[in-house]
């Protein structure tokens, strides 16, 4: 395993942390006129596990296919390790691709599947043998080399598919929803396996999924897409804790969202007082793009992660709620479903997640949270004409 890591360090020209992929102003319009992606730009650091995530039809697969060169793009460039590959033939791009259901060659055994691509590379025989033996060891495939793909479990197929791509030592490995159809237990195991393999090889991975827990589990970098555009690109910590838009706050992880009007500022503009139907709350204005003074009088929602809310009256913000449901989940604490009653007859559903198992008495409960975990969301989405209530908070 150590040898695999070392070899990749020697092979790559740059340092871990440099950008290895640059996508600039990428646009893809399909022949029927559908604009799948529109002028998107992002970069990926060498060795990172980057996950493209978004609802179906958001353009994440089109972006992946543009990187591998499945079709000509309409505009923009893709650069790999400093070289513009926008018009390079797919097989000359030095990019590996792992498909959903893996698509192993059914008539070849495991070893032949792994060797297949290598034989076309014209490498010295000793190098071929070294790569094959390294890969089979790391992927724990030693006892399976003579098996046919149909004799393998799903986990073993994944390892063969990865071995087949990684043996070519590509600069980039693209994975298109490879765990899509698996049952829950298997999927969890394969996610961990994928992480282990990524950590050992330090190859840059780009992974497409619509499953946000998979994204949070796997990614160093998450690119959140929506309707052909990028909502946010950042580390999982940034996307989760500093969402750029309300869309991101609700798509990645759960959020409780309050809408209201900014009525004042405190702490030199670091915090804002927001008047809502449910009372006045303090929220952090730290990540706003506008100058603090400009936001007074504006309608700006804020979001709070359910696990940052506590059963406490001793917080900067408190709210009395009706208890709708208490869900005790062994191993994962308790989820409270609450209803807050506004001044007029509006109500708002609220979720709270507690690490401990609790069973609150009575029909109401007071919950609290500090201003620093209340994130103001100046923009609903990068997509114009999106309505917060209807398009983001609804289905």
């Amino acid at each position, binding site marked *: *395993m150590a040898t695999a890591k070392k070899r990749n360090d020697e092979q790559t020209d740059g340092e871990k942390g440099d950008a290895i992929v640059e996508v600039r102003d990428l646009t893809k319009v399909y022949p029927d006129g559908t604009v799948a992606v529109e002028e998107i730009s992002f970069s990926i650091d060498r060795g990172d596990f980057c996950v493209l995530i978004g*609802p*179906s039809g958001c353009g994440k697969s089109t972006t992946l296919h543009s990187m591998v060169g499945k079709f000509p793009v309409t505009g923009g460039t893709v650069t790999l390790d400093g070289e513009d590959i926008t018009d390079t033939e797919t097989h000359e791009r030095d990019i590996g691709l792992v498909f959903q259901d893996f698509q192993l060659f059914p008539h070849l055994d495991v070893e032949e599947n792994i060797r297949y691509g290598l034989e076309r590379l014209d490498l010295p025989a000793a190098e071929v043998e070294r790569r094959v033996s390294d890969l089979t060891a790391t992927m724990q495939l030693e006892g399976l080399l003579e098996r046919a793909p149909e004799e393998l*479990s799903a*986990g073993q197929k994944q390892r063969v598919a990865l071995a087949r791509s990684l043996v070519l030592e590509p600069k980039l490995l693209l994975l298109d929803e490879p765990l899509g159809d698996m*049952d*829950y*237990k298997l999927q*969890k*195991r394969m996610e*961990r396996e994928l*992480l*282990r393999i990524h*950590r050992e090889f330090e190859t840059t991975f780009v992974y497409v999924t*619509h*499953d*946000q*827990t998979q994204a*949070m*589990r*796997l990614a160093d970098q998450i690119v959140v897409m929506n309707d052909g555009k990028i909502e946010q690109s950042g580390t*999982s*910590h940034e996307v*989760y804790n500093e969402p750029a838009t309300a869309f991101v706050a609700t*798509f*990645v*992880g*759960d959020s409780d969202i309050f809408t209201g009007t900014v009525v004042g500022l405190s702490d030199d503009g670091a915090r804002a007082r927001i008047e809502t139907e449910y009372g006045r709350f303090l929220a952090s204005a730290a990540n706003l793009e506008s100058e603090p003074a400009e936001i007074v009088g504006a309608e700006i929602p804020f979001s709070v*992660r359910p*696990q940052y809310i506590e059963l406490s009256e001793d917080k900067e913000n408190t709210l009395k709620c009706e208890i709708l*449901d208490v*869900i*005790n*989940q*062994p*191993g*994962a604490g308790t*989820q409270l*479903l609450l209803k807050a009653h506004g001044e007029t007859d509006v109500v708002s559903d609220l979720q709270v*997640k507690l*690490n401990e198992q609790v069973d609150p008495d009575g029909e109401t409960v007071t919950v609290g949270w500090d201003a620093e975990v209340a994130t103001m969301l100046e923009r609903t989405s990068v997509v114009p004409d999106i309505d917060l209530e209807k398009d983001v908070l609804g*289905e």
Partner: protein
Amino acid sequence: MTAAIRVDSLDLSFRNETVLRDVNLEVDDGEFCVVLGPSGSGKSMLLKSIVGLETPDSGWVFLDGEDASELSVPERNIGFVFQEFEETLFPHRSVEENIAFGLEQSDIDIDGDEMDRRIDDLLELLAISDTKDDAPPELSGGQQQRVELARQLVRRCGIMLLDDPLADLDYKLQKRMEIEMRRIHDDLDSAFLYVTHNQDQALKLADKLVVLNDGRVEQVGTPSELYHEPDSAFVARFIGDSNAFKATSVETTADRVRVETELGALLATPMNGMATDAEGLVTIRPEHIAIGKDASAKDNTVEVAPAGETYMGETTEIAVEIPDSGRQMIVVEPGQTTVPEAETVQIGWDATDTQFFEKLSVTETVRTDDLLEI
């Protein structure tokens, strides 16, 4: 009290293979019972036997205390949603007509206004109001699944059998529908028997959980009982996350057993046997493992190499590598945790959180290697 569903000593074969063996199960009125098990364990077949679509080789199904052996499917008056929902919806009728059909087929006597109201309520609850006038083929798989669900729920049967009714929904909608499912169950107050492969969903929804393995019931209990007090290594491995190792018992005291594993000797709690020199499996939940300075006070400690951490928002999952073997263990900490950069780190956990199983499963053929692969 008479159980809404009672399955007694049920055996069933399908295409000359035994798919259910000596299954015993009770679901009370108003209870939410979830059946969990690997694919091929017999979950769907159990539902089909209860609804009357499969005839058991032997054993009985009692519905509200009555032997159902001689009852036809309609006579059993059970609401059911199966995986083959595409085949049951009428392609040339609107969503509303499809749902109304469910009501017209049952003996319930309600007027048109009441019927409209029920249908509208369900469409809204299941977030498919917009599809009311559409024909099923125009809908996505997830929408069709919800139409079939509405068509069965509208009948308000005292017994509902649901075979993974949220399986085709995307992640966000599935989470929302899980919560709605609890609400629907509370409203109807029917007995639900619900099949899923999604643990997370099962642990959230169930009053009672049934774990099936290879056609047999491994264990029945509350989610908390199955999670914290599994009867067998199979249940421990299948429900929730765990780290598992082959283990041999070397010394037993009143309530502890010392076992030998690849991690060295561990102090464990015997779960189903107190023999010495017994071979079995030891399991440790990731959230019960302390890492760093908190580890040293624990009953069992091991030096491991940090292999990477994943921040997942609500928790951080830390992978550590066991020296020599290269195998990994998983540690879960709440919130965001950073492991200091070092060659090795100590992890530790208590004997009460180290469960040793002599008995692997109700099924004799299960081996420790199989359980390590779960």
